[in-house]
């Protein structure tokens, strides 16, 4: 059988001693940069790209770079949970419930659940990659601007679920996020918007700066403002491992999230961004006790983390089967291919089978290594919470600033961290939550771009959004989600559940 032959070829390649070492090096580096706020996989891969120049075996280079990428997805959850410092958009979702768990003394459980969920999802996604890559990639090509627009609309409406409090405030935060996302040069005309003559703002606000500000720095300010919540957190670091009952609770979320993440990851136009948000929204909808979400629901950690890891892996599909990079990290991988003298195109799978299948096999091996690497570290991470705040806070601030600056050597990004830190604190005091704001910020530009693109292609005819079948279905789902969210009867019930939980 072809598939088995291919997998055998892949494993024989990936299990070679030197490839195994590069895989370990990649995932260890990835975990490290994921843990450091700000310094993300994109910056690390960009830094290491020239080093791979000297590698004799292109497979080793790609295995290592890929390891950094999905390793960072693991590591990224660590600071999000412990310090409320998400380094990238997916980790922002993990921070919502993960950090609440940490504050309740259950950081170890949250970290373990994140690692186990990621491992399960990574394993399944590797199989998806091996079995269904070409048909999935072909299906993804039928996604045009109209489909992406409708998908984003659905994502934004579903994201009202991200907020545990008032729906109105959540909506306001989404809109504010969308507005912040418009800062920078307009894609269609190049006109600068809300840049106030500052050329450094032409490419828009940096996501990392905004996320580190409204989550991490705001959290520090909140802690300084309210010392009571601090003492509670340090004194109660207990049970590192999830109980059997807790493990049972995460089985459903992990399975659903893996499916969702695998599908969204394939879409080259930004589907991977939606994966963790979508999973969170779904889990909150299907949960029997949605009131727990936002207050430390274990499903709110397991689902998004699994979805995120699955999507990270399946986002290799457009690259490996079509030669199309889905996001900046994949564009860097294209650079790595080119440096190794391989032009990534639709033929790369047939022309370089040992390389492609070796890379796929290495992803599963990398996931095993990540679990082996991360589970023993959990005890260590949790102990980090007992570091005195007088040391921890300055260190976080310095790391956040260095990391943010290193992304684009743009001093305005560091300024943005400070501004959004204060804004985040004000929002927390006002009872508004930062997660919907970030989602609006990430999805706003996608929404606008695809709306304008779809209308350009259709020559101004808005009916394409409903007449194109996939787009029509997505918009119908969005409408249903909206009705469910605003239906007064359901809302009242929601509030009751919420109140009971308090």
């Amino acid at each position, binding site marked *: 059988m072809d598939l088995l032959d291919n997998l055998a070829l892949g494993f024989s390649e990936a299990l070679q001693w030197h490839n195994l070492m590069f895989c370990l090096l990649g995932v260890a580096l990835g975990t490290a940069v994921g843990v450091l706020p700000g310094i993300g996989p*994109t910056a690390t*891969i*960009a830094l290491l*790209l*020239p080093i791979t*120049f000297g590698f004799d075996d292109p497979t080793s280079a790609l295995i290592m770079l890929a390891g950094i990428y999905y390793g960072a997805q693991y590591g990224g959850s660590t600071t999000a949970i412990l310090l409320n410092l998400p380094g990238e958009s997916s980790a922002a979702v993990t921070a919502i419930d993960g950090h609440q768990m940490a504050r309740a003394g259950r950081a170890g459980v949250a970290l373990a659940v994140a690692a186990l969920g990621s491992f399960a999802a990574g394993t399944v996604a590797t199989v998806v990659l091996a079995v269904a890559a070409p048909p999935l990639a072909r299906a993804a*090509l039928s*996604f*045009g*601007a109209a489909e992406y627009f409708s998908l984003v609309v659905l994502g934004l409406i579903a994201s009202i679920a991200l907020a545990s409090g008032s729906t109105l405030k959540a909506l306001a935060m989404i809109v504010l996020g969308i507005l912040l996302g418009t800062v920078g*040069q307009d*894609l*269609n*005309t*190049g006109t600068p918007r809300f840049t106030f003559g500052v*050329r*450094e703002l*032409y*490419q828009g606000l940096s996501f990392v700066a905004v996320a580190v500000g409204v989550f991490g720095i705001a959290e520090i300010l909140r802690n*300084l403002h309210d*010392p009571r919540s601090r003492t509670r957190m340090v004194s109660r670091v207990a049970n590192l491992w999830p109980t059997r009952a807790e493990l049972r609770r995460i089985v459903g979320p992990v399975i659903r999230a893996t499916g969702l993440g695998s599908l969204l990851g394939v879409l*080259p*136009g930004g589907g991977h961004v939606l994966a963790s948000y979508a999973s969170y929204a779904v889990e909150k909808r299907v949960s029997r006790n949605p009131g727990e979400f936002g207050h430390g629901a274990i499903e709110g950690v397991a689902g998004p983390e699994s979805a995120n890891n699955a999507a990270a892996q399946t986002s290799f599909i*457009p690259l490996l089967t*079509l*030669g*199309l*990079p*889905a996001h*900046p990290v*994949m*564009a860097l*991988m*294209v*650079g*790595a291919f*080119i*440096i190794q*003298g391989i*032009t990534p*195109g*639709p*033929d*790369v799978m047939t022309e370089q089978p040992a390389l492609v299948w070796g890379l796929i096999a290495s992803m599963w091996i990398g996931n095993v290594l990540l679990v082996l690497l991360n589970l023993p570290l959990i005890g260590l991470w949790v102990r980090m919470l007992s570091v*005195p*705040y*007088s*040391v921890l*806070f*300055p260190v976080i*601030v*310095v790391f956040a600033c260095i990391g943010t600056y290193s992304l*684009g*050597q*743009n001093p305005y990004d560091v300024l943005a961290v400070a501004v959004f830190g204060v804004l985040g604190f004000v929002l927390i005091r006002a009872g508004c939550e930062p997660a919907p704001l970030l989602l609006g910020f990430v999805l706003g530009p996608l929404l606008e*771009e695809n709306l304008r*693109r779809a209308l*350009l*292609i259709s*020559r101004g005819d808005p009916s394409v959004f409903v007449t194109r079948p996939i787009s029509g279905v997505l918009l119908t789902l969005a409408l249903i989600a909206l009705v469910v969210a605003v239906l007064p009867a359901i809302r009242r019930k929601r509030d009751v559940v919420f109140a009971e939980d308090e």
Partner: protein
Amino acid sequence: MTPAGPRKTAAYIGALAGLGLILAACSSGADPANYPEDDIDVIVPFSAGGPTDTVTRMVAEPMSEELGVQLVVQNVDGAGGTVGAGQAATAEPDGYTVLMHHIGMSTAPALYDDLAYDPVADFKPVGLVTEVPMTIVGSPDFEPTTFEEFVSHIQENADTVTMAHAGEGSASNLCGLLLMDALGVEVTAVPYDGTGPAMGELVGGQVDFMCDQTTNTTGQIEAGKVKAYAVTTPERIEALPDLPTTAEGGQPDIEVSVWHGLYVPAETPDEVVTQLTDALQVALADQMVIDQMADLGTAPVAADQATPEAHATLLQEQIESWGDIIGAGQGG
């Protein structure tokens, strides 16, 4: 316990600032006679992994060997390359900051009316590096199959044809403007955020055609995932020997390539520029560089082009011709 936090932060920031001052003091004492004695920063005004970045890293390696110091690539992305170029324009003119820029250096004055630097007055050219050819490609479902059919098809159906490009000021945008100018038509231009997504939607048949660098199109053309119409250079290219040129198809005016060049700030001493030019010449003759560029469908420029003089001439010429084309595009 609480007051210690902010105080420590201040101490850290102070320490960092002090370190910065020391470093700044060291670098300002550079002596052109001993150049180079320290690592050289190469500013690439685009993101890592993109075509310009890849080209830079290819030549940085042998140039480092030749100069005996490391060339460190810094990606300063943003505003069509004008952020990185602006940074290089105001850098210390000691030869330790070098800029790698492409055709965008010559189009920026026409695209941005508030440009903070002058591409000619604020820089000294070091030499050209490579001229990446561009190709005109269509989606698999796009009707025409030859370049001649393509030309007549878009002239007849200008109001329904769509053209993808990678955003304002990108090479694909420039080529599209030139093409419309030469054919005297205006089609709907659909901007994408980079060439990757644009190629994706072209392969998927969401848009009709695009003009893009061989770095991005060769793989797709060879695999038959897009229709290839023509290459925009005077001669056919080695990577795609069967692809006719635009001139062969009767459109010699559609001639464009994404030329790359190295620059230093205007006040940099001439002896430093000479050393950089010499190192560039050596790098461009390196077999490894030639092979790697061939994989991308391009080649190093001839030795007489990798000079400050040839580079200055081309820059001046290009600023003028793009000024006209972009001005016309915006007017219409």
